[in-house]
């Protein structure tokens, strides 16, 4: 299994541009998450999904959109990039239930908005 994969690894955007961060998992996990990591701030949850067709807002959803058309994919969309969205973005997945409740993380996407 490849686990959780994210593309691209790095990206520089200009203010106002848009992009989609891709996330795919091959573990057949129902739950998927998007986090952003800012220095000294830990991880903040942006959006999450408990299954295909179901998404919900996390702690910091403004400026982002998500969709979940398949179990495997959970793309994150930035419509109008702003400098405040400069961060490292992590996708994660899990199949909650008792002792299988571990979240698996992708390698991250480092985004800079100038």
């Amino acid at each position, binding site marked *: 299994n490849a686990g959780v994969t994210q593309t691209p690894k790095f990206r520089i955007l200009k203010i106002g541009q848009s992009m989609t961060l891709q996330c795919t998992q091959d573990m057949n996990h129902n739950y998927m998450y998007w986090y952003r990591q800012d220095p000294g701030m830990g991880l903040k949850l942006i959006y999450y999904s408990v299954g295909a067709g179901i998404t919900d807002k996390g702690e910091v959803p403004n400026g982002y959109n998500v969709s979940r058309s398949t179990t495997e994919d959970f793309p994150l969309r930035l419509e109008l990039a702003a400098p405040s969205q400069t961060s490292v973005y*992590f996708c994660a997945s899990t199949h*909650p239930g008792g002792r299988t409740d571990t979240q698996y993380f992708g390698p991250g996407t480092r985004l800079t908005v100038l």
Partner: protein
Amino acid sequence: AQSVAQPEDQVNVAEGNPLTVKCTYSVSGNPYLFWYVQYPNRGLQFLLKYITGDNLVKGSYGFEAEFNKSQTSFHLKKPSALVSDSALYFCAVRPPSGNTPLVFGKGTRLSVIA
């Protein structure tokens, strides 16, 4: 709402000495507690978790954590630190029911000095 506190931004320890990284939590009911480690330019990796049972949980790379319900703590420990343990460590909590995602602490940077 659940929360996690990691009171130390940075922990320095000499190689071969025992290490402790502190975590306290606030959650309704009995919690699921997790420790993750992040090496530079990598995603988070699962170390260990407490669901129920023994208060001392053993995990990867020789790490263990002690769940203390009365003190609402879940401190990460290792008897003998290695330079390769230097990384960013995150504590996380999740209530035992519902779809609530993990809530992460801000992280503690561990530096092991040779």
